């Protein structure tokens, strides 16, 4: 099915203090705000930055409470105005399994101590990075990631994980870990994959959709966990399947999952042109779109010249605000030695659907100076 042509737009002339470029950070959307935390480049960042998409302004709220250490490639979800942070890399080679909450209404951090829901299972997930952390109906599902078996942070013994955890958000603001029983074949161990939650328009058939990741090689497989039955399935998908990838972003807008960027294997054409055989991967700036209704990969028509597309990147963040897909920062690829990677400092958005005609209220709002 043909989709109307999409056009990337670079956001320029933002005001306020711009955060330093980085990768491995995460973002969530609260109304018109994009809240960015963590990530890093030559040092993990513990700053919280907020971008207001309406006023085109960055600001840094002053936070209080148990301020967490900076972390990268961690889990980040938002439930109303309450943000949860789990795991990630906190120092070179050292991963965390701490859980923090941030009340965005008063910018207050709090370290949480979740209890196991039932006795007899592991108390909590092991420290990890690159896991997925997805909220569906008051439960945050944690899947996979990468653990370090070594005591010494400099001597990494990697282990790819395939465990599934459920963090239940109780009405009284308490949380508890559970290890749900699943049926069917589960996805293979992986990290730096993506997960989105999808429910039918009427709220039925909640599903967790896992895509791609890394397990020594980049993965391009798609998995679905039906939360009603807790059954894993590998759905058959029509359309052109995009290249396998990790460190990409997946964002749900409407009934479509937009995949942007990440590391992809070099295709045959690239191999011909490059003489360096060590380079097996490259970053991409391609956009793929999976229609979750029809389970088909749709062709994305890009209406753009080369310079008006964000450059290839991985480890960026992506959020959806209304019909817009926003992406910010991320790293640019293999051009540098690994320890002095240059990160992109640009902010872009993609209008995936025509915005609805403005309602009366919005028009009234727009005519006043204060929004």
């Amino acid at each position: 099915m043909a989709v109307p042509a999409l056009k990337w737009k670079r956001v320029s002339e933002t005001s306020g203090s711009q955060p330093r470029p980085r990768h491995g950070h995460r973002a969530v959307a609260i109304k018109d705000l994009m809240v960015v935390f963590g990530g890093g480049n030559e040092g993990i960042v513990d700053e919280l930055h907020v971008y207001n998409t309406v006023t085109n302004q960055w600001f840094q709220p002053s936070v209080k409470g148990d301020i967490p250490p900076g972390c990268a490639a961690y889990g980040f979800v938002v439930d109303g105005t309450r943000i949860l942070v789990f795991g990630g890399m906190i120092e070179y080679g050292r991963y965390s399994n701490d859980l923090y909450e941030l009340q965005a209404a008063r910018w207050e951090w709090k370290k949480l101590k979740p209890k196991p829901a039932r006795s007899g299972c592991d108390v909590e997930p092991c420290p990890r990075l690159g896991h997925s952390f997805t909220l569906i109906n008051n439960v945050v599902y944690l899947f996979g990631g990468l653990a370090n078996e070594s005591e010494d942070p400099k001597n990494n013994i990697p282990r790819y994980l395939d465990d599934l955890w459920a963090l239940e958000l109780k009405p009284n603001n308490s949380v508890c870990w559970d290890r749900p029983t699943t049926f069917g074949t589960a996805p293979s161990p992986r990290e730096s994959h993506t997960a989105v939650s999808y429910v039918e328009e009427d709220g039925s058939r909640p599903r967790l959709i896992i895509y791609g990741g890394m397990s020594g090689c980049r993965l391009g497989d798609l998995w679905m966990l039906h939360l009603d039955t807790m059954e894993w399935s590998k759905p058959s998908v029509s359309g052109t399947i995009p290249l396998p990838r990790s460190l990409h972003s997946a964002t749900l807008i409407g009934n479509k999952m937009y995949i942007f960027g990440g590391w992809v294997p070099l295709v045959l054409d690239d191999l011909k042109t490059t003489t360096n055989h060590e380079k097996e991967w490259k970053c991409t700036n391609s956009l793929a779109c999976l229609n979750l209704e029809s389970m088909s990969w749709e062709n994305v028509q890009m209406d753009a010249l080369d310079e008006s597309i964000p450059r290839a990147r991985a480890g960026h963040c992506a959020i959806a605000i209304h019909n817009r897909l926003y992406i910010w920062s991320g790293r640019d690829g293999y051009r540098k030695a690994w320890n002095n990677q240059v990160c992109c400092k640009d902010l872009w958005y993609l209008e995936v659907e025509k915005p609805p005609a403005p309602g009366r209220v919005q028009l009234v709002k727009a005519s006043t100076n204060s929004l």
Partner: protein
Amino acid sequence: GPGPGFRMPNLTPSQLVKLINLDHSYALPSAPLEKKTHCFPPRLLFQNEEEIALLNEPKSKLENLLTRKSSKRAQKVKIVEEEDIDVCTPDDDPKIPYDHGKARQLMKECEKNVNFARIHDVSENWEEDVNKIGWTKSQRRLFKKMVQIFHDEHLKRLAYSENASEPLYRRLSIDKTTQAVRTLLTQFAWETKLIQWLHGVLMDNLSLEYLGYYLDILQTLKSKVPTLVEKMITASASGGKCNRATNVEALNLLLKRPWDPYATAIHTSKLKKPTVSAVFVVVPPGPPNGNVICHQRQKSWLSLLAGLGKVVTVSLPSTANKLNVNLYAEMMLVCSKQKLVEVFETSPDKPIYLVGWGSGAIVAATLSLTENVTGVICLGFPLHGTYGTRADVDDCLNDLKHPTLFVIGDRANNSSITDMEIFRKGLSCINGLSVICQADTYLRVTNYHQKRLFVTQSYVDKCIIDEIAWFLINVPILEDELKVQAQQAQEQVL
């Protein structure tokens, strides 16, 4: 380990860890790995530690003076108060690396040559004896101001006369005085008739001592604005107390090369020369009449560079001056490339270095991306430009592959040490950074700091040549070290 059925594609455990570290490079290892990198440590020239410590004092200078105990300078102030100041015996001889005897000889050259200009001295009251009848208002004003400049120079000379570093002080005071004269003449728009008249009056009436000052000034001025000075001293009027026609020739000879106390200092000899003579292809910083670097300085700098190897300068066709900036830059690139091809043909077995000043440095660096040169030398490298900082993700200069030396001034407004260090660290080629402390965009040290550091600009320029020599010698050494290190790493993996 990974679960059953899991396939790891031809990766050894260490390769996998390397790949993971590459994917998740958010933090640096806490202790940096001890190994040689392709970046030479930065070299700071003319850095005075005491001064820098003082600058880093959190207190203001005024506060230091008021409390008089928190800084070294304040302590000195106190000591000076308590002791009698000895104004008779000159200060200890500062360790200046030039031949004092020869420097003194050079210093007195203009004084000696006064005789060529005029044999008879005039009375001490020469100023009053000048016949001012019929002078216009502007003539009076110009003469008065000029004489005041001579008096100032006279006082300066008295202040440092018989000082051990007199030649250096004299050089610096002449530079400053010349600047004042240039400013004055510019106020009068270098009006040909007026300045020729002034020259005539001064040559005829100045006392021999002041005439010496005037020759010193003319000599320096000529190196800055040659055509204007030539116009000024052209013998247009005949008559007067001295026979100008015969003197013009002698005068021209004297004015040809300004003296410098460091002229005889064979400074480069303290370093080993590179064993193989190199070819330097010098890219100009812009159109030839652009006074980015003054003509004389550039000429003498190039002759110094010739001490290290053959110098080939790139020249652009005169039609290029009419092009806009972008086309001109492209033209520079094309012409430099052509010249490089010629050099490749004539000296195929010699190391070839691209050299550029300012924007020429950018051209040289850009050209090195595609040409197989031995190295690049970027002087006054402009890291910040109209379009922001270079070394952005999109910047092609991130891909420099040949050994590159950057020389910047720490007071340059188009570069900074911190940004250069970040930029340099991101390069994959061998590179060095030499910082001329207290120097500006064009690597010029101000008169104040020249005096403080006992240097002249020509000495600074010689030191830049030394930095180039140092780089030429040390690049092959580092290349070998890196090769050995890579081999050792390879053996460890196997």
